[in-house]
Structure formats: structure tokens, C-alpha cells
């Protein structure tokens, strides 16, 4: 197979943000996750929790609560504004001040006609949901005490509001508080500390509350009396979630545990039931701030930034990829762009970009050795973003002379001039107005064009040393409005492929500036794609790990692709839990396709047979031990390498050396805030 020189890069200090809110839409099976940097991510439950869309964050934006109303997503936070997210354009649709101070919680009624927001000033504000906006209707309550949590009864006539030291139940007809449930303070030293009701649930006959005294309490709705009190933790119970049939509920705590309660028969076969604490999951090191229950899984997220999807095995019948624990820690898109000719790396941080030049070596050595570095890597540029919006995409041209980035408020294009030691940067003025902001940016291989997408359209901008010029806009014939997730350009610049979040792939002929064809839509999202430099075959990898190869010129799947589909992929490949996020090719060997996910990279040699069901998938060590003559007999197409992980980027430079960008987990965990103190033995 061959030797590769690997640039092992660890100076991309990517840091994920903590999760602060979640909402699961049972109808569309989409999970919305809000992070502390203000970004919102959308995951598809049906597609192995594939990250379909990301609404970029913004400084000072904090989201405390998310709420689905049909297919519309609302969010609110400490800025005191209620905002709707535009999921086609991946930005805010509108935001409206509720005039009640910071908002801690929003919920919508079961009918989907009204939103209620719990505000700092102690009021519950009701808003009517209209076509393109929301309209304030009235206030409820509000003398003092903030409203931390809200829950709407399924009948739609009552709202429970968790406050400081108490829970109030409001009647919607009269607008008055009809019940006041007092929550006692913690028994440990802080009797004087107020008890915050972090979360309430309004089930058909009970109210459930989780509070800062570490208790999950069940209250009778009719009498307002405490029925059951579960001390779950020494610290806070931050969030609660209930299954749709109201037989199972979960509580997330500051200790990082998720505790399950189930409504079980007191005596087998009898009517009487009781909430019993059944299971405790500990998959987090820090506070669990948000929980969502999606039938067969419980999804939790918190300060340790990872999204944990825990299957409830009692609801699954057989072992599959869905029955194993899934931890989503790394973004499912590339934050690194690589200038292959110039050997540059552009790192995308939320508020700045970094451009690095890779180091060099003059040494040679046997496999396994570390070569002496003759020139150290060099940070050429640290580009701070103007404005408050975070970067949503960025790109560096292959020649390394152009850099472009976009936020939701605008695109900026820079020309970079490098002579021996100096780097100068000039902003290119007068970008076409049609390109107000972009979801994806990329440069043509000869660096003569910039392609940017807004929503579903691709705009073509020609670059010259004098400046830039808008050339054309390409729109899919289908009229789909889904945002473009990925772009791929062929190395001859003739074809451009765009994949949107609805798994549709459109191919445009850039010489003729018109649509060329579309690829048949597959049920799973497109996680990565790339166009082969010689054959112009489009290699597409989906979130369910299926691989397709589509010949653009013949407008049909290639023989290799058909063979893969016929023989099926190896189960080890299909059981991986992170999607492939980049596809690249080896310029020296046209048979090589290089793929990578967070925990491995893999070189597929299309000339070799595919691994069959029984063969050993990870066979590198076996092959290494065999004499050279016998290797070919035992080798198969998938050459997987797990030497470097977790991976943020793997790419191949023109000089056939690989670049791997690693982000060690330890570096992320050391940058997290300290978890709550727990008594451990001998401490």
C-alpha cells in the first residue's frame, strides 16, 4: 500500500461549548440543541443523530429554553427576547423583546397556538403565535420572584411555574394563580439558601418538580399536596423529562447523573401504581442541564459539552447500531480548510480565524519514526471577526492567496500576499449584494472563483487580482429551499456538487453555468463528498455510513458503487458511531479514496476486493506480520488507521503527505470548568 508522511497537528485549540437547552420534536423527530455560545444544532433522530443544520451563535446571546411549535423553533434567553429560528436560512427569523427581564423558560401549549414565557419579573407572559411573528396577549402573576421553569398541562388550561421556594399553578381562564406549592429548602447546611425549582413537569394528574435541594417531588394536582419526595442528589436537580405516555421520567443532576423513575405496579397485576426510582446513568462529568426523551432513547447534555444518547434497552428488542451508547462530542462538519498547494491550514474558531503554514522536514526514515522538523509550523494570521455574529463557514483558496469567511450578517473576502517573511492582507471590497451571507464557501481548484451558497442557491464570483465580479447564480430546478450543507468542486473546475440538508445532491456544470444533473436521493443525510480528480466521479458518504460513487459524466452510479451495494459493507464499518466528515483523494494513486471520521481515517483502495462478512476488518496488524508475498491475498479495500484520534481533519497535500488535525480529549476536559465537588475516598 505504501508509506505516508504525516503532519500531526495539535495546535487547533477547538473547544466545544456547553449544552444549555434541548427540545425534541416528536413529529419531525428532530432534536434541537442550544449551546452556551448561542448556537443551535439540529439532529435527526431517524438518521443516527446526524447533525443536519447549525444556526451559528452570537456573542451575548444566551439561550435558556427552546421550544418547538410544529416545525417552527423558538428560543428565549437571558437577553429577554423571544426569537424564532429560520431553519432554511440558518439564522434568526425575528426576535421580540418580552419586556419582562431575562427569560428563563418558554413553553407552548398543546394546541400549538400560544407561547408562555417565564420572566425575571415574576410574570408568565402569554404570546399568540401568528404566521410570521408572535403577539403579546397578557400577563399572569408577577409581584416578585423570578419564574425559572414552566410546564403546560395537556388540557391547556393550567400552567405550573417553578419559582424560588415555590411552585405556582396559574389558571389560564382567569389568569390567576390557583395554587401555591411551597418547596422546602435543603436539609444540609444551607437552610438559609433559597430553593430554586429548576424544572417542573405537568402530567395529567401530578406535578413533578426538580429543585436545588436535590429533590424530585411529586405533587397532587387537585389538592396541591406533596405525594412523594425523592432525594436524588446532594446537589441540584436541574432538568426533568417525561415520556409521552407518562410512565417514565428522567431527572438530570449537577453530579452528571441521569436518574430514571418509572410508574410501576405496587403489587403485580393490580391497578395501583407508584413512581419508583429505577435506574441511574452516569455519562457526564459535569451538570446535566438538558434532557430529552425520544421513545427508545434518553438524550442528555450539559456543561461537559457532549451530547449523550443513551438507549433504553428495555425498549429495544435486538442489537443494532441504535442499541449502543452514543456520545456526540465533535462537530459533524469540517472546521479546518486546507490549501493543498500552499500547505496552509485555516482554523475556524467562533470569533476568529487562524492561518498556519505547516512545517517541513528534510529527513527520511522508516515507518514508525518521527522525523526531525527542519522548519517549524508558523502562524501566519490571526483574523478577528467584526461584529457579534460567530463564523458559520470559512475557506482558504488552494493557492493560499484568498481567504473568505461568512457570518449570518455578511461575507468577507481577503487577499493574502506573502513574500519571504511578511504577510499582508487586504480586504476585497464590493462583494456582490446577492451574496449577503453564505452557508458554505469554497474556492475553485485554480483559485479563480469563489462559490458561496445562500439557502439553496450557489453564487459564482470570479476573482482577479483587481477584485471580484459576480458571475452567476445557480438554483436547483426542484425549487427546494433546504440549506446547502456541503460543496465539492472537481479539480478541473468543470463540475460543482452541492448537497443540502435534505440529502439532495445537485451537480452543476461550471463551464456552461447550468445545472448538469441530480443524484438520486438516499434516505440518509450526506455527511461528506468529494469529486475524484481524474475520473470526475463523485464519492458520497452518508450518515448511515453507506458509500456511493456516482459518475458525473455518465450520470449514473459506477460499477464499484454497485459492487459495494451488492456485496454490502462490513458490519464493523457500519457500526462506527461518528459519521465520515471529509472525502479526499490521493493525487499519486487514483485508486485511493481517503475518508475520515472522529476516531479513524481510512484509505479505500478501489482496486482491491471488498471485505466480506467473515473477513477481519481491522487487518493492518495481521498484514504487517505476513510476508510481503502473502499480503495481497489477505488484504481488502479498507485500510483503516486509528493511530490518530480524535480527528478534526485529514487531508492530503499535493506532495502526497497527509495532514491530520488532532484534538486530544484531555485538552478539552482540562479546559472545562470544575465539576461539583464530590466526596471521594481519602479526599
Amino acid at each position: 500500500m505504501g508509506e505516508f508522511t504525516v503532519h500531526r497537528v495539535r495546535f487547533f485549540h477547538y473547544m466545544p461549548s456547553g449544552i444549555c437547552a434541548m427540545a425534541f420534536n416528536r413529529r419531525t423527530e428532530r432534536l434541537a440543541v442550544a449551546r452556551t455560545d448561542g448556537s443551535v444544532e439540529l439532529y435527526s433522530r431517524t438518521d443516527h443523530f446526524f447533525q443536519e443544520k447549525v444556526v451559528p451563535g452570537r456573542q451575548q446571546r444566551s439561550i435558556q429554553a427552546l421550544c418547538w411549535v410544529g416545525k417552527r423553533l423558538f428560543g428565549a434567553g437571558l437577553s429577554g427576547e423571544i426569537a424564532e429560528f429560520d431553519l432554511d436560512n440558518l439564522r434568526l427569523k425575528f426576535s421580540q423583546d418580552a419586556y419582562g427581564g431575562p427569560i428563563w423558560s418558554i413553553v407552548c401549549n398543546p394546541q400549538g397556538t400560544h407561547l408562555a414565557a417565564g420572566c425575571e419579573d415574576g410574570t408568565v407572559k402569554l404570546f399568540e403565535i401568528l404566521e410570521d411573528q408572535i403577539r403579546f396577549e397578557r400577563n399572569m402573576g408577577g409581584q416578585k420572584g423570578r419564574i425559572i421553569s414552566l410546564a403546560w398541562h395537556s388540557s391547556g388550561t393550567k400552567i405550573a411555574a417553578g419559582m424560588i421556594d415555590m411552585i405556582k399553578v396559574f389558571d389560564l381562564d382567569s389568569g390567576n394563580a390557583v395554587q401555591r406549592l411551597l418547596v422546602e429548602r435543603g436539609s444540609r447546611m444551607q437552610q438559609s439558601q433559597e430553593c430554586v425549582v429548576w424544572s417542573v413537569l405537568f402530567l395529567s394528574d401530578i406535578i413533578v418538580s426538580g429543585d436545588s435541594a436535590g429533590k424530585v417531588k411529586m405533587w397532587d394536582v387537585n389538592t396541591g399536596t406533596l405525594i412523594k419526595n425523592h432525594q436524588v442528589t446532594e446537589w441540584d436537580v436541574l432538568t426533568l423529562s417525561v415520556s409521552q405516555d407518562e410512565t417514565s421520567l428522567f431527572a438530570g443532576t449537577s453530579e452528571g447523573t441521569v436518574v430514571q423513575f418509572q410508574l410501576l405496579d405496587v403489587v403485580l397485576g393490580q391497578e395501583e401504581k407508584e413512581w419508583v426510582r429505577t435506574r441511574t446513568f452516569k455519562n457526564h462529568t459535569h451538570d446535566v442541564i438538558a434532557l430529552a426523551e425520544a421513545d427508545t432513547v434518553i438524550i442528555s447534555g450539559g456543561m461537559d459539552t457532549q451530547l449523550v444518547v443513551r438507549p433504553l434497552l428495555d425498549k429495544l428488542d435486538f442489537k443494532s447500531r441504535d442499541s449502543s451508547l452514543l456520545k456526540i462530542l465533535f462537530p459533524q462538519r469540517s472546521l479546518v480548510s486546507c490549501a493543498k498547494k500552499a500547505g496552509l491550514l485555516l482554523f475556524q474558531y467562533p470569533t476568529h480565524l487562524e492561518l498556519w503554514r505547516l512545517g517541513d522536514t528534510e529527513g527520511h526514515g522508516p515507518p514508525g519514526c518521527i522525523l526531525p522538523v527542519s522548519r517549524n509550523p508558523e502562524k501566519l494570521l490571526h483574523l478577528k471577526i467584526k461584529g457579534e455574529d460567530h463564523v458559520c463557514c470559512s475557506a482558504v483558496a488552494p493557492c493560499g492567496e484568498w481567504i473568505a469567511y461568512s457570518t449570518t450578517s455578511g461575507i468577507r473576502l481577503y487577499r493574502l500576499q506573502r513574500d519571504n517573511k511578511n504577510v499582508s492582507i487586504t480586504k476585497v471590497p464590493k462583494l456582490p449584494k446577492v451574496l449577503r451571507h453564505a452557508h458554505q464557501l469554497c474556492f475553485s481548484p485554480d483559485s479563480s472563483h469563489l462559490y458561496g451558497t445562500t439557502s439553496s442557491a450557489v453564487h459564482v464570483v470570479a476573482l482577479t487580482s483587481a477584485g471580484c465580479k459576480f458571475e452567476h447564480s445557480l438554483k436547483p430546478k426542484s425549487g427546494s429551499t433546504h440549506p446547502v450543507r456541503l460543496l465539492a468542486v472537481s479539480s478541473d473546475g468543470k463540475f460543482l456538487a452541492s448537497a443540502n440538508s435534505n440529502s439532495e445532491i445537485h451537480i452543476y456544470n461550471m463551464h456552461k453555468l447550468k445545472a448538469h444533473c441530480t443524484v438520486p436521493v438516499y434516505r440518509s443525510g450526506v455527511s461528506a463528498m468529494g469529486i475524484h480528480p481524474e475520473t470526475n466521479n463523485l464519492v458520497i458518504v452518508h450518515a448511515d455510513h453507506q458509500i456511493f460513487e456516482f459518475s458525473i459524466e455518465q450520470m449514473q452510479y459506477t460499477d464499484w458503487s454497485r459492487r459495494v451495494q451488492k456485496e454490502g459493507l462490513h458490519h464493523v464499518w457500519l457500526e462506527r458511531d461518528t459519521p465520515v466528515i471529509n472525502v479526499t483523494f490521493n493525487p499519486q494513486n487514483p485508486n485511493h479514496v481517503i475518508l475520515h471520521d472522529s476516531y479513524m481515517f481510512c484509505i479505500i483502495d478501489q482496486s482491491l476486493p471488498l471485505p466480506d462478512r467473515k473477513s477481519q476488518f481491522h487487518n493492518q496488524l495481521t498484514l504487517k506480520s505476513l510476508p510481503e508475498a502473502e499480503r495481497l491475498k489477505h488484504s481488502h479495500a479498507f485500510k483503516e488507521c486509528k493511530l490518530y484520534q480524535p480527528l478534526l481533519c485529514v487531508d492530503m497535500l499535493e506532495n502526497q503527505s497527509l495532514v491530520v488535525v488532532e484534538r486530544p480529549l484531555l485538552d478539552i476536559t482540562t479546559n472545562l470548568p470544575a465539576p461539583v465537588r464530590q466526596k471521594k475516598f481519602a479526599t
Partner: protein
Amino acid sequence: MAALYEATTLCVLNVGPGGSDSGISGIEPSADDDQVVVTDSARSVTVYKVSDKKALGSWTVKQGQTVTCPAIYNPQTSEYVVVTDSKVSADVWRVLSVPDSEPLVLFQRGAVRRLDTLLADPQQPVENVLPEEAVIRWSAVLNVEQQPCLMFLSEQKGETLLLMQRRHPDSAARYRLEGGEAPLSCSALPCDGGVRLFCLYSSGSVYESVVPIRGAGGVVEEVQPLPRTLLLNLPVGEGKLESASAVSLDDAHVALVGVPHPSAGPGKDFLCIWNTNFQTLQAAKEMAGRIYGQLWCSCGKLYVPHGKSLSVIPFKCQKSSLAAAMGKLRQAGSNGTIASAEEVQKKVSAFLSNLKNLHVIQVAAGGLASVLVSRCQEQPGFYPHSALVQLVHSQCLSYSVCPHLLTLALEKKDYALCQFCLQVFPDIPEAVACSCLKAFLSESDGTLDTVSLERDSVAFVEGLIANSTQEGGETQSSMPLDMKCPVGLHKAVLLNEILQVAYSDCFLLLHLKTLSAPQVILFLQYLQFLYGKYSQDLHTQVSALRSPAMTQILDWICLLVDAHFTVLVMAPEARELLSHLHKVVRLQVKVFSELGKIEGCLQALQKAKQSGDVCQYSIEVIELF
């Protein structure tokens, strides 16, 4: 089933001198079901309302007088009747209340008068029915076929006579009780065409006799024999019963006080209800303090004087059948023919082979074992060894399902069964494991070697011992590790089973303290022997399905030394043992400190490797195949 409910204290006893007398001479029903008349053996009579535990009224006789028979309530006149200083015109034995009629007065010499006729002419002459040396032991009036029937027992010259008198038609009859000896306590119940008489004897037997009532009147002068049948044969321990009392509650249940509980230790007194049909103990309640052998029953409540109080215990008897779990054995029991051990064995085999469902079998086998065990406890001769072994082997039993089985096996010295129980039961309490250990240690090797134990475990120990004799000669220098097995083969097998029992050390420690010093030293020697064998890796050559693990042996050594450290230090014969153990520990400490050093070195190596790894950038060469 019968049940005894919560006891309440009715009053405090005025215990006589020496404490042998409860101070109560009788308890009789009063005006309604909730009232009783309690007669003090000294001078006073008190009426209590039972549900309120309150005295309604009390009378005391003059100084110098004594109440000589229990007071009764006469519902005809709503008066209480009591006799002082025995006297009317002759010595009175008892005044007996008769349902719906005038009370009867029974004189000590056997004459009977209606109370009203006696009071009308107190000085009337009274005939002597009994000879002078005869003593009345018991008397009662029952309503038989709507007619009151007076009966009493008299003892004279080593024989006991039952005398019966009826007024309408006027009749009298005498019966001689079988056996001659006077019963400790009697009780009578009416039945079809007669009276059932229950007698408790000092041997612990309860007999039943049916006294026929003939329709025709007339006095039968000659003494007729009265046959009896054995209902219960209760274990009384050593000696005979001294003060005990039995009251029949219905045709199947009898309440007993002063008879030892079959499974409780000595020194504890119980009120028990036995089922006479099935010979089973239905309910028992421990009575604190001394029991005076007195028991009364009135309106569904039992009255027992004990210690310093008089307790009222409500009870309930239901028509009983043995637990359904008994399966086929039930018929055997209720038919009156008690299955022999062999029959039981056959039925148990059939029972086990018939049941397929594991859950059902567990419940049923547990019930069956409990029934068998309780029968073994009642019937000293009955012990179905193979049936019990088979039940244990079915793997359906656990200690908690049948807690008395293991104790029974120990009592019967059935060490084979003990071994199976120890192997199979997952939940043997530490106390029981410890009592097994004590029994094994104190049993002589000779007795144990006759027991047939499970072959595999025997073979294991044989292998160990054989190894020790083979190599004993050559490696004497290697100090404590080589020694002869200090216990016999079978004892070693049993001790191995103890070692493999699950336990919690803080509970076990408590019970281990009850071991005697020789037992501890012997056990420690055996453990040391095992340890020696194990550290020579000899046990790996001896294959066995079950063998104690090295950690189990070490844990037991630690526990034993913990429990008896001071004793061991003081005992001269333990000195050698302790010094050997000390050497072993020192050896271990040395090994561990060496291991610690190795760990440190390895860690340093790992760190050195990691430190080269943390740089931010490197260029490496890899090869893919």
C-alpha cells in the same frame, strides 16, 4: 389455620410467696361476653371489662376468711356466687354455672345440689358419693343435647374416674380412665352423642376419649372402662411436664401452655395452638416471665397468667387443612395414617419429577420441605433423610425458604445433608454457618469418617493430603508450608464447605467469637495447612468442581485471628501457629513491596513514553498495508 392475636394485659398478678402460684384461682364469664370474673386465690373477686382492661367492681371477704372456689355469675338472678372457707353444710369443691339454668354446687365428696335448693335449706344433709381419700381434680358442666351434663374427675388409689351426672333424664355413670395416672389438665367439648374429653399428661401426650351419653336414664353403678386415643405427642425435653394446661378450642385445635415450643430453646415459654388432626403447630406466642400452667378460655379469648401479669390473647381457629403445597402428603396426613419415611421418599421423588415449572417448583418444594421438617420436629422417630437430600438437590430450596432444615440436619447429625445444604443454599446466615462450623470442629474424626459425603469434594481433600504425605519428607526445611493435615479427611471436607459459604465479615466476626480456644486453634491449623498447600500450587494438580479459593482461606484466617487475638496470644499451644502465620505475612509484605517497586518503574516508563507524545506538532512516517 389458627392465629393468635396481639396480647393485652388485663391486670397485674398478686403472685403468691415463692412465686410458684399465680394467685388466680379462676376466671369465669360474667354478665356479657366482654366481662369476666377473676377470683383471687386470697380474698378478692374482681369483675373486669376486657376490652377496656378496666375493673368494673371488686369485692373482698373479711379478714381471716378465704375464697375457696372461683366466683361465678348467676345469670338467673344477676348475682355473683362465691364460697368462703369451703363451708355450706359440707365442704364445697366448686360452684358451677349452668347455661340457662340454676348453678350447681359440687361438694368435695361428690354430691351435687342446685344452688337455689341449697340456699333454701342450707343445713340440709349431703350424701357422700366418693370415698374419703378421693380427690376431685377437675369438673365441668356442658350442655349436651340441650341438657346440662355435669362431669368431674376424681383420683383415688392410683386410678382416675370420670363421673357424669345428668338431671333429665336422671342418670349417672362412672368411667375409668385408661392409664390410671391423673392428667395434668383436662378439657371437654360436646360432640355428636357424647362428650369429647381431652387430657394432657405429664409425658406431653394429649389423649382424647369419647364419653357416650345414653338417652335412657338410670344410674350405672359399675365402673366402665373409657378407651382413649393419642392425639398429640409433644416433645417435652428432659423430665416431665410439671405445670401445663390444655384447653380444647374446637374439634381440631387445642391450646397449650407450659409445653415447650418444638423449635425454641429451653427457658422460653409459649402459648401454642396445635392442630390435632395434622399434629402441626398452628400458632405460638412467647409468654414472658414464668408460666403457672394455668389457662382459661372464654368467649374467643385465652387468659394466661405469666410473670407478673394476666394476659388476654384473642384467637381464631379456622377449619384447617394442611397447606396446599403439601400435595399428596396431605391426604396421607388427614386420613390419619401417617406416611412412613420410605413412602415420603417415594412421594417426594414423584413430586419432583412431575413439576416442570421452575417457579412453581420452588414454592412447592419450599412448602413441602417445611412440612417435612416440622413433622420431623414433632415426631422424634421420623426422619426421611433421602427425601430431604433429594429436595435439597433439586436446587429449589434456599435457607430462607425453609430455615429449620439445616438446623434439623445438624441436630440429627446428618452431616451429608449439611454438606448439601451448605453447597446449595445461597443465603445461609452467619450464625448458622458458625454453628455448623462448631459442630464440625467438635465432632470426632471417627464419627465423621463413617458419614458418606459428596465424592468430588472428598477426592479434592484426598488429593491434597496425598500430596502432603508424598513430599512431606523432602521439603521440611521450607518451614510452615509443609505440615500434616491436622484434621481427618471428612472433617476437612466439611470445613471446606464452610469456607465457601458467602458471608459478611462484620456479622460473622460476632459469631466467630463464640468458638472455643481449642476449636479456633484446630481450625487455624487446618487453614494454615490449606494455605501451605495452595502456596505450593499443589491444589492446581488436584481438580475439583468446588474448592475454596485462596482469598477465602486468607479471609477466614484474618477473621479468626481478629476474633480471637487475645486468646491466641495467651494460649501457649497457639504460639507456634502464630509465629508461622507471622512468617507468612512477612513474606507477603516483602513480595508486595517488591511489586510496588515494579509498578513504580513501569509507571515511570509509561510517563517517559507519554511525555514524548504531547508536543503540538510532529512529522511522522506511517505505513499502511
